[in-house]
Protein backbone atom coordinates (compact mmCIF):
# COMPACT_ATOMS: atom_id res chain seq x y z
CA UNK A 1 0.00 0.00 0.00
CA UNK A 2 2.99 2.31 0.39
CA UNK A 3 3.36 2.26 -3.41
CA UNK A 4 0.01 4.04 -3.62
CA UNK A 5 1.12 6.52 -0.95
CA UNK A 6 4.33 7.25 -2.86
CA UNK A 7 2.40 7.84 -6.05
CA UNK A 8 0.14 10.36 -4.30
CA UNK A 9 3.02 12.04 -2.48
CA UNK A 10 4.90 12.45 -5.77
CA UNK A 11 1.80 14.23 -7.13
CA UNK A 12 2.48 16.91 -4.52
CA UNK A 13 -0.33 15.72 -2.22
CA UNK A 14 0.75 15.09 1.38
CA UNK A 15 -0.05 11.62 2.68
CA UNK A 16 -0.05 9.80 5.98
CA UNK A 17 -0.03 6.01 5.90
CA UNK A 18 -1.42 3.54 8.42
CA UNK A 19 1.11 0.89 9.46
CA UNK A 20 0.93 -1.73 12.21
CA UNK A 21 3.83 -1.48 14.63
CA UNK A 22 5.09 -4.93 13.67
CA UNK A 23 5.70 -3.78 10.12
CA UNK A 24 7.65 -0.60 10.69
CA UNK A 25 11.01 -2.09 9.67
CA UNK A 26 9.47 -3.47 6.51
CA UNK A 27 7.90 -0.07 5.83
CA UNK A 28 11.26 1.63 6.33
CA UNK A 29 12.89 -0.60 3.71
CA UNK A 30 10.02 -0.17 1.26
CA UNK A 31 10.02 3.61 1.64
CA UNK A 32 13.73 3.72 0.77
CA UNK A 33 12.99 1.78 -2.39
CA UNK A 34 10.17 4.12 -3.35
CA UNK A 35 12.44 7.14 -3.29
CA UNK A 36 10.15 9.54 -1.44
CA UNK A 37 9.86 10.05 2.33
CA UNK A 38 6.45 9.11 3.69
CA UNK A 39 4.68 10.03 6.92
CA UNK A 40 3.51 7.05 8.96
CA UNK A 41 0.77 6.74 11.57
CA UNK A 42 1.42 3.73 13.75
CA UNK A 43 -1.24 1.30 14.93
CA UNK A 44 0.23 -0.48 17.97
CA UNK A 45 0.07 -4.22 17.39
CA UNK A 46 -2.37 -5.69 14.88
CA UNK A 47 -5.95 -4.44 14.47
CA UNK A 48 -7.22 -7.91 13.55
CA UNK A 49 -6.86 -9.22 17.10
CA UNK A 50 -8.08 -6.24 19.12
CA UNK A 51 -11.53 -5.81 20.64
CA UNK A 52 -13.69 -2.94 19.43
CA UNK A 53 -12.90 -0.98 22.58
CA UNK A 54 -9.18 -1.63 22.33
CA UNK A 55 -9.14 -0.70 18.66
CA UNK A 56 -10.95 2.57 19.36
CA UNK A 57 -8.53 3.41 22.16
CA UNK A 58 -5.48 2.72 19.98
CA UNK A 59 -6.85 4.76 17.11
CA UNK A 60 -7.71 7.73 19.32
CA UNK A 61 -4.53 7.69 21.39
CA UNK A 62 -1.92 6.58 18.88
CA UNK A 63 -2.90 6.16 15.26
CA UNK A 64 -5.08 9.19 14.56
CA UNK A 65 -2.72 11.67 16.28
CA UNK A 66 0.14 10.19 14.27
CA UNK A 67 -1.76 10.52 11.00
CA UNK A 68 -2.72 14.10 11.82
CA UNK A 69 0.91 14.97 12.58
CA UNK A 70 1.86 13.37 9.28
CA UNK A 71 -0.49 15.64 7.34
CA UNK A 72 -0.11 18.88 9.30
CA UNK A 73 3.30 18.73 10.97
CA UNK A 74 6.79 18.74 9.58
CA UNK A 75 7.30 17.01 6.28
CA UNK A 76 8.89 13.57 6.66
CA UNK A 77 12.65 13.54 6.40
CA UNK A 78 14.37 12.86 3.15
CA UNK A 79 15.42 9.26 2.58
CA UNK A 80 18.95 10.58 2.27
CA UNK A 81 20.48 9.58 -1.01
CA UNK A 82 24.08 8.80 -0.19
CA UNK A 83 27.00 8.40 -2.48
CA UNK A 84 27.41 4.74 -3.37
CA UNK A 85 30.16 2.65 -4.94
CA UNK A 86 30.01 1.83 -8.62
CA UNK A 87 28.89 -1.66 -9.62
CA UNK A 88 31.92 -3.93 -9.66
CA UNK A 89 33.93 -1.72 -7.31
CA UNK A 90 36.04 -3.30 -4.55
CA UNK A 91 34.45 -2.17 -1.28
CA UNK A 92 36.15 -4.25 1.38
CA UNK A 93 39.33 -6.22 2.07
CA UNK A 94 39.56 -8.75 4.84
CA UNK A 95 39.62 -12.33 6.02
CA UNK A 96 36.70 -14.67 5.47
CA UNK A 97 35.27 -13.86 8.89
CA UNK A 98 35.81 -10.13 8.42
CA UNK A 99 33.97 -10.26 5.11
CA UNK A 100 31.07 -12.06 6.79
CA UNK A 101 30.91 -9.47 9.55
CA UNK A 102 31.13 -6.53 7.18
CA UNK A 103 28.44 -7.84 4.87
CA UNK A 104 26.22 -8.67 7.83
CA UNK A 105 26.57 -5.18 9.29
CA UNK A 106 25.81 -3.61 5.91
CA UNK A 107 22.62 -5.74 5.62
CA UNK A 108 24.06 -7.25 2.45
CA UNK A 109 23.21 -10.77 3.59
CA UNK A 110 20.17 -12.42 5.09
CA UNK A 111 22.28 -13.60 8.01
CA UNK A 112 23.68 -16.72 6.41
CA UNK A 113 27.37 -17.08 5.49
CA UNK A 114 28.33 -15.91 2.01
CA UNK A 115 31.12 -16.76 -0.36
CA UNK A 116 33.28 -13.62 -0.71
CA UNK A 117 32.48 -12.14 -4.13
CA UNK A 118 36.00 -11.50 -5.37
CA UNK A 119 36.54 -10.12 -8.85
CA UNK A 120 38.07 -13.42 -9.98
CA UNK A 121 35.06 -15.41 -8.82
CA UNK A 122 32.54 -12.99 -10.29
CA UNK A 123 34.45 -12.93 -13.60
CA UNK A 124 34.23 -16.73 -13.65
CA UNK A 125 30.44 -16.42 -13.62
CA UNK A 126 30.50 -13.80 -16.36
CA UNK A 127 32.44 -16.16 -18.62
CA UNK A 128 29.35 -18.37 -18.75
CA UNK A 129 27.29 -15.73 -20.54
CA UNK A 130 27.87 -13.62 -23.62
CA UNK A 131 25.68 -10.84 -22.25
CA UNK A 132 27.33 -7.66 -21.09
CA UNK A 133 27.74 -7.20 -17.31
CA UNK A 134 26.01 -3.80 -17.35
CA UNK A 135 22.90 -5.08 -19.12
CA UNK A 136 19.90 -4.27 -16.92
CA UNK A 137 16.98 -6.70 -16.86
CA UNK A 138 14.69 -4.55 -14.75
CA UNK A 139 14.63 -2.23 -11.79
CA UNK A 140 13.47 -4.42 -8.92
CA UNK A 141 10.80 -2.49 -7.03
CA UNK A 142 11.49 -3.43 -3.42
CA UNK A 143 14.77 -1.61 -3.19
CA UNK A 144 14.47 0.34 -6.41
CA UNK A 145 17.69 -1.15 -7.75
CA UNK A 146 18.69 -2.54 -11.11
CA UNK A 147 18.91 -6.28 -11.65
CA UNK A 148 21.87 -6.55 -14.00
CA UNK A 149 23.96 -9.37 -15.39
CA UNK A 150 26.76 -8.25 -13.06
CA UNK A 151 24.49 -8.21 -9.99
CA UNK A 152 23.32 -11.73 -10.86
CA UNK A 153 26.93 -12.88 -11.02
CA UNK A 154 27.83 -11.25 -7.70
CA UNK A 155 24.75 -12.64 -5.97
CA UNK A 156 25.33 -16.10 -7.46
CA UNK A 157 28.89 -16.06 -6.16
CA UNK A 158 27.77 -14.99 -2.70
CA UNK A 159 25.11 -17.71 -2.61
CA UNK A 160 27.69 -20.41 -3.32
CA UNK A 161 26.58 -21.26 -6.83
CA UNK A 162 29.05 -22.75 -9.28
CA UNK A 163 29.98 -20.35 -12.11
CA UNK A 164 28.49 -22.65 -14.73
CA UNK A 165 25.05 -22.09 -13.15
CA UNK A 166 25.06 -18.56 -14.56
CA UNK A 167 22.64 -19.28 -17.47
CA UNK A 168 20.17 -20.78 -14.99
CA UNK A 169 20.55 -17.78 -12.68
CA UNK A 170 19.87 -15.39 -15.55
CA UNK A 171 16.78 -17.39 -16.53
CA UNK A 172 15.50 -17.22 -12.96
CA UNK A 173 15.96 -13.45 -12.84
CA UNK A 174 14.29 -13.04 -16.22
CA UNK A 175 11.28 -14.92 -14.88
CA UNK A 176 11.23 -12.84 -11.69
CA UNK A 177 11.51 -9.63 -13.70
CA UNK A 178 8.45 -10.51 -15.78
CA UNK A 179 5.67 -8.17 -14.58
CA UNK A 180 3.36 -11.20 -14.42
CA UNK A 181 5.54 -12.62 -11.67
CA UNK A 182 4.75 -9.58 -9.49
CA UNK A 183 7.99 -9.60 -7.56
CA UNK A 184 6.80 -6.41 -5.90
CA UNK A 185 4.26 -8.47 -3.97
CA UNK A 186 6.75 -10.89 -2.48
CA UNK A 187 7.14 -10.33 1.22
CA UNK A 188 3.47 -9.61 1.74
CA UNK A 189 1.76 -10.57 4.97
CA UNK A 190 0.41 -13.93 3.77
CA UNK A 191 3.89 -14.69 2.47
CA UNK A 192 5.02 -16.83 -0.39
CA UNK A 193 8.37 -18.18 -1.49
CA UNK A 194 9.44 -18.90 -5.06
CA UNK A 195 10.31 -22.45 -6.02
CA UNK A 196 12.66 -22.95 -8.96
CA UNK A 197 12.44 -26.19 -10.90
CA UNK A 198 15.36 -26.87 -13.24
CA UNK A 199 14.42 -29.37 -15.91
CA UNK A 200 15.92 -30.94 -18.99
CA UNK A 201 19.40 -31.99 -20.14
CA UNK A 202 21.00 -29.07 -18.32
CA UNK A 203 20.38 -30.89 -15.05
CA UNK A 204 22.91 -33.53 -16.11
CA UNK A 205 25.23 -31.02 -17.74
CA UNK A 206 25.46 -29.05 -14.51
CA UNK A 207 25.87 -32.24 -12.48
CA UNK A 208 22.99 -31.45 -10.15
CA UNK A 209 22.29 -33.87 -7.36
CA UNK A 210 19.13 -35.60 -8.55
CA UNK A 211 17.43 -38.96 -8.91
CA UNK A 212 18.38 -42.20 -7.19
CA UNK A 213 21.33 -44.50 -7.55
Amino acid at each position, binding site marked *: *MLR*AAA*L*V*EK*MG*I*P*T*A*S*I*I*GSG*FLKQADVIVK*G*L*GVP*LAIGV*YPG*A*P*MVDSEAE*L*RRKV*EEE*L*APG*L*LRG*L*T*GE*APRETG*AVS*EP*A*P*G*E*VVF*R*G*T*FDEVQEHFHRQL*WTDGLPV*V*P*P*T*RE*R*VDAFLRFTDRKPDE*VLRAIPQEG*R*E*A*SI*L*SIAVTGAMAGCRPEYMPVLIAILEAMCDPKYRVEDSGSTPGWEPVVIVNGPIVKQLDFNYGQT
Partner: protein
Amino acid sequence: MAGARDSSNTEARYEVLWPLSRRAVREAKAAPRLPDLNGKTVAELWDVIFRGETIYPLVREYIQARFPGVRFVGYSEFGNFHGAREHEVTASLPDKLRAHKTDAAIVGIGA
Protein backbone atom coordinates in the same frame (compact mmCIF):
# COMPACT_ATOMS: atom_id res chain seq x y z
CA MET B 1 39.58 -19.23 -3.50
CA ALA B 2 40.95 -16.27 -5.36
CA GLY B 3 41.92 -13.29 -3.28
CA ALA B 4 44.84 -11.07 -2.36
CA ARG B 5 47.05 -12.44 0.41
CA ASP B 6 48.52 -10.46 3.27
CA SER B 7 52.21 -11.42 3.47
CA SER B 8 52.23 -11.04 7.28
CA ASN B 9 49.43 -13.51 7.76
CA THR B 10 48.82 -16.92 6.29
CA GLU B 11 45.05 -16.52 6.45
CA ALA B 12 43.54 -15.69 3.08
CA ARG B 13 42.27 -12.19 2.62
CA TYR B 14 39.67 -11.24 0.10
CA GLU B 15 39.01 -8.16 -1.97
CA VAL B 16 35.26 -8.18 -2.41
CA LEU B 17 33.02 -6.34 -4.82
CA TRP B 18 30.08 -4.16 -3.91
CA PRO B 19 27.16 -6.61 -3.92
CA LEU B 20 24.40 -4.11 -4.68
CA SER B 21 23.53 -2.42 -7.93
CA ARG B 22 22.63 1.05 -9.05
CA ARG B 23 19.57 2.75 -7.65
CA ALA B 24 16.92 3.09 -10.34
CA VAL B 25 14.51 5.39 -8.50
CA ARG B 26 14.61 9.14 -8.82
CA GLU B 27 14.52 10.63 -5.33
CA ALA B 28 11.63 13.02 -4.68
CA LYS B 29 10.83 15.36 -1.82
CA ALA B 30 7.78 14.95 0.36
CA ALA B 31 4.86 17.19 -0.54
CA PRO B 32 4.39 20.33 1.56
CA ARG B 33 2.28 19.70 4.66
CA LEU B 34 -0.99 21.47 5.52
CA PRO B 35 -0.97 23.03 9.00
CA ASP B 36 -4.69 23.84 8.76
CA LEU B 37 -7.04 21.22 7.33
CA ASN B 38 -10.12 23.46 7.52
CA GLY B 39 -11.45 23.89 4.01
CA LYS B 40 -9.26 21.08 2.74
CA THR B 41 -10.24 17.78 1.17
CA VAL B 42 -8.73 14.57 2.52
CA ALA B 43 -8.98 11.39 0.47
CA GLU B 44 -9.14 7.99 2.11
CA LEU B 45 -7.33 5.22 0.24
CA TRP B 46 -7.84 1.73 1.59
CA ASP B 47 -6.64 -1.68 0.51
CA VAL B 48 -9.73 -3.30 2.04
CA ILE B 49 -7.98 -5.25 4.75
CA PHE B 50 -7.21 -5.03 8.45
CA ARG B 51 -10.47 -3.49 9.71
CA GLY B 52 -10.33 -0.26 7.80
CA GLU B 53 -14.12 -0.13 7.81
CA THR B 54 -13.82 0.53 11.56
CA ILE B 55 -10.55 2.45 11.62
CA TYR B 56 -11.26 5.05 8.94
CA PRO B 57 -14.48 6.40 10.55
CA LEU B 58 -12.63 6.73 13.87
CA VAL B 59 -9.76 8.61 12.22
CA ARG B 60 -12.26 10.81 10.42
CA GLU B 61 -14.03 11.57 13.71
CA TYR B 62 -10.71 12.45 15.40
CA ILE B 63 -9.60 14.83 12.67
CA GLN B 64 -13.00 16.46 12.24
CA ALA B 65 -13.10 17.20 15.98
CA ARG B 66 -9.96 19.30 15.52
CA PHE B 67 -10.66 20.68 12.04
CA PRO B 68 -14.46 20.98 11.67
CA GLY B 69 -14.09 22.42 8.17
CA VAL B 70 -12.29 19.42 6.73
CA ARG B 71 -13.98 17.35 4.04
CA PHE B 72 -13.35 13.64 3.52
CA VAL B 73 -13.74 11.62 0.35
CA GLY B 74 -14.43 8.02 1.36
CA TYR B 75 -12.35 5.07 0.24
CA SER B 76 -15.15 3.60 -1.85
CA GLU B 77 -14.59 6.44 -4.35
CA PHE B 78 -11.12 5.19 -5.20
CA GLY B 79 -11.38 1.40 -5.23
CA ASN B 80 -9.15 -1.28 -3.78
CA PHE B 81 -5.57 -0.71 -4.92
CA HIS B 82 -4.40 -4.01 -3.42
CA GLY B 83 -4.49 -7.38 -5.15
CA ALA B 84 -5.11 -8.48 -8.69
CA ARG B 85 -6.42 -5.10 -9.90
CA GLU B 86 -3.67 -3.08 -8.27
CA HIS B 87 -2.14 -1.72 -11.47
CA GLU B 88 -5.49 -0.76 -12.97
CA VAL B 89 -6.80 0.90 -9.81
CA THR B 90 -3.52 2.63 -9.07
CA ALA B 91 -3.38 4.02 -12.59
CA SER B 92 -6.79 5.56 -12.07
CA LEU B 93 -5.86 7.31 -8.80
CA PRO B 94 -4.30 10.52 -10.15
CA ASP B 95 -7.38 11.44 -12.19
CA LYS B 96 -9.73 10.58 -9.34
CA LEU B 97 -7.70 12.54 -6.82
CA ARG B 98 -7.67 15.57 -9.12
CA ALA B 99 -11.40 15.22 -9.79
CA HIS B 100 -12.08 15.39 -6.07
CA LYS B 101 -9.67 18.33 -5.68
CA THR B 102 -7.77 16.35 -3.09
CA ASP B 103 -5.45 18.28 -0.78
CA ALA B 104 -4.21 15.36 1.36
CA ALA B 105 -4.63 11.62 1.64
CA ILE B 106 -4.66 8.91 4.28
CA VAL B 107 -3.44 5.59 2.91
CA GLY B 108 -3.77 2.20 4.60
CA ILE B 109 -3.57 -0.36 5.88
CA GLY B 110 -0.24 -2.13 6.24
CA ALA B 111 -0.31 -4.41 9.23
